[in-house]
């Protein structure tokens, strides 16, 4: 479900398909492997190809946010669908996770 590209301290991950309780465990494990290197302080998740997400996805995102916060890093997302944006609003995720509308300018820190 994941494709990634690293640029120094930033890991860009594209997620595809449906993020529910069933897929969450695998996504969680793969994301944790991708950010295992402590020098990565910025995780950017591109949601262009994510067609579904429910509250199981909220848990996955908050968990990765916490890992990055412990190393003074940050998590941002880009290209969310309107449905996922509503879940973000409802759960307050937009307060801790930056949302970029386009993938153009994901700079470092």
């Amino acid at each position, binding site marked *: 479900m994941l494709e990634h590209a690293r640029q120094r301290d930033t890991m860009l991950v594209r997620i595809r398909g449906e993020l529910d*309780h069933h897929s969450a465990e695998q996504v969680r494990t793969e994301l944790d492997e991708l950010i295992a290197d402590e020098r990565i302080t910025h995780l950017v998740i591109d949601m262009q190809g994510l067609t*579904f997400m429910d*509250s*199981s996805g909220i*848990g*996955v995102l*908050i968990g990765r946010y916490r890992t990055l916060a412990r190393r003074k890093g940050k998590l941002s997302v880009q290209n969310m669908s309107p449905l996922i944006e509503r879940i973000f609003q*409802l759960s307050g995720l937009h307060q801790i996770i930056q949302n970029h509308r386009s993938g153009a300018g994901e700079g470092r820190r």
Partner: protein
Amino acid sequence: MSIINQMRLEFMGCPQNESFARVVISAFAVQLNPTIEEVSDIKTAVSEAVTNAIIHGYEGAQGTVVLSATINDQHILTVEVEDRGRGIADLEQAMQPFYTSHPELERSGMGFAVMQSFMDGLEVTSTVGEGTHIRMRKHFARDEK
């Protein structure tokens, strides 16, 4: 107000069936001419209820989950999700946004809040040791899209 269509489906409460339940409810709702947003709403709400039955109701023990739905002549879809699992002792607490009995599993406690906000009505009845019954309602626009 009379029922014009009805379905009832029984399946094993395993995680693979979360997406199965979403596909079933969106297929059933097609006759209501839903918008893309309305389809996402019901899929998400059903996903929350079915996931709760699997994780919390049966705690991984794979009991039977029942998904049923009706459509009435007022363009109202009613969806029910039932499990015969452990039940909920304190319903008021369980339905509070951000309350979860399983923070260690990275649950966020937002399932009921999602059902509430994505549907037009939510009723929950639960008995400890007997199971949980979720009933949700959504009104669809009547125009011929």
